[in-house]
């Protein structure tokens, strides 16, 4: 049973560029959430997708956008990259209607902005 998979695992971009990160949820899960983890900090909620719609959003600018596909996989797009966007981006999947709050996380995509 494949867990949450993310790609790429590492990438380097320069300021002003755009990046797309990808996530495949755990089999059977229909909800995908994205988190940003800066060095020495806990994960910070970006947004959550369910039924191809953004259901909740954290305190991130519009440069951060996402998409969920019919097969429940998801993309995170960041435009006009800033140095401060350097972080580990974590994708987490869950089942809508689940009652434990348990999120299954991928290993993350490490983004470095130079």
């Amino acid at each position, binding site marked *: 049973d494949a867990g*949450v998979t993310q790609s790429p695992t590492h990438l380097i971009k320069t300021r002003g560029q755009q990046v797309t990160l990808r996530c495949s949820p755990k089999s059977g899960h229909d*909800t995908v*959430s994205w*988190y940003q983890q800066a060095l*020495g*900090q*806990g*994960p*910070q*909620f970006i947004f*959550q997708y369910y039924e191809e719609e953004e259901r*909740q959003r*954290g305190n991130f600018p519009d440069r951060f956008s996402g998409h969920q596909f019919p097969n429940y996989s998801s993309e995170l797009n960041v435009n006009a990259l800033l140095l401060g966007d350097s972080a580990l981006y*974590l994708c*987490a999947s*869950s*089942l*809508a*209607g*689940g*009652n*434990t*709050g*348990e*999120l*299954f*996380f*991928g*290993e*993350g995509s490490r983004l470095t902005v130079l």
Partner: protein
Amino acid sequence: DQQVKQNSPSLSVQEGRISILNCDYTNSMFDYFLWYKKYPAEGPTFLISISSIKDKNEDGRFTVFLNKSAKHLSLHIVPSQPGDSAVYFCAASAHGANSKLTFGKGITLSVRP
């Protein structure tokens, strides 16, 4: 504005002893609390959760205690094992399970053999 606080950045305990990891929160709307464990180069993994209608939840060696009046929760690990060495995150949500999580900064636990 940090709504979930893990004020101790690290904790070191002897194998076999109890580990107590503390977490404080400020948002009284939080009604669901979780603990996650993270090893290097891996994503966080779920450990245990507790609803605000309870004050204790136990799962094997792990017990979470919730004190709503103090806005404080703690994770007890008994007995501690070297494999428990990891970063532990406390997280909370304001609309029950499956809602967005607010995480603390994490505590690095080291269990000495």
